[in-house]
């Protein structure tokens, strides 16, 4: 599955997106854990609270939320607009 990154997280991971092999559907928690395994040096930046998650462009607070094949998934730092 493809995952998008933005802002500081994009810079810290060194990429705007990455592909992770993972059977879907999977929970947000599972995807986050796989992401941490994929970027072990940046594990702390990817924990819940430090990295927010969006599924299909909706902010998701529930780590049990289900990600299906074809969903657009993104991780990014807390927002600072306005």
């Amino acid at each position, binding site marked *: 599955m493809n995952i998008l990154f*933005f802002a500081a997280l994009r810079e810290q991971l060194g990429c705007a997106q990455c592909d992770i092999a993972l059977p879907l559907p999977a929970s947000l928690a599972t995807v986050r854990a796989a992401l941490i395994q994929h970027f072990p040096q940046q594990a702390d930046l990817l924990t819940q609270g430090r990295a927010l998650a*969006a599924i299909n*462009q909706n*902010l998701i607070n529930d780590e049990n939320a289900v990600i299906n094949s074809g969903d657009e998934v993104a991780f*990014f*730092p807390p*927002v600072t*607009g*306005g």
Partner: protein
Amino acid sequence: MSAETNTGTEHYIAVQQADFDVAQEYAALRNNNRCDGAVVFFTGLVREMNQGSAVSGLTLEHYPGMTEKALQQIVGDACARWPINRVRLIHRVGTLEISDQIVFVGVSSSHREAAFDACYYIMDYLKNRAPFWKKEVTGQGERWVEALDKDKQALNKWQTCDD
């Protein structure tokens, strides 16, 4: 990098690099509007000092597509909560200098209470829910702006019993 969306007949939401003209936005809230007695607007500007450092400019990154969706959601929620008639919301992205305009939120309503509350609510939620990120240029180099606890706590004032 520009997206304009109408969420209903009277609302306008845009994410754009271009600057906006407050006089024009105010006119759009007021023209041919005989029922509204109150207009409240907010503009956010680039400040010279932020989080303890002198800033010479900033870059605003966003998540295209999600940004517009998040702003529509926030405006829709405000409209469901208060009797407001027109909302105009513009947020800039890209490179900005000191004193540049960043964001405009304008709300018209029959009465001032709804206009004040809805405008304030939209800004508080935008600060917490809309995917924009600021990167500042300071004397010590570039840095990403840190999200503040006080912005998160600002949402508490909008909590109701049935939330």
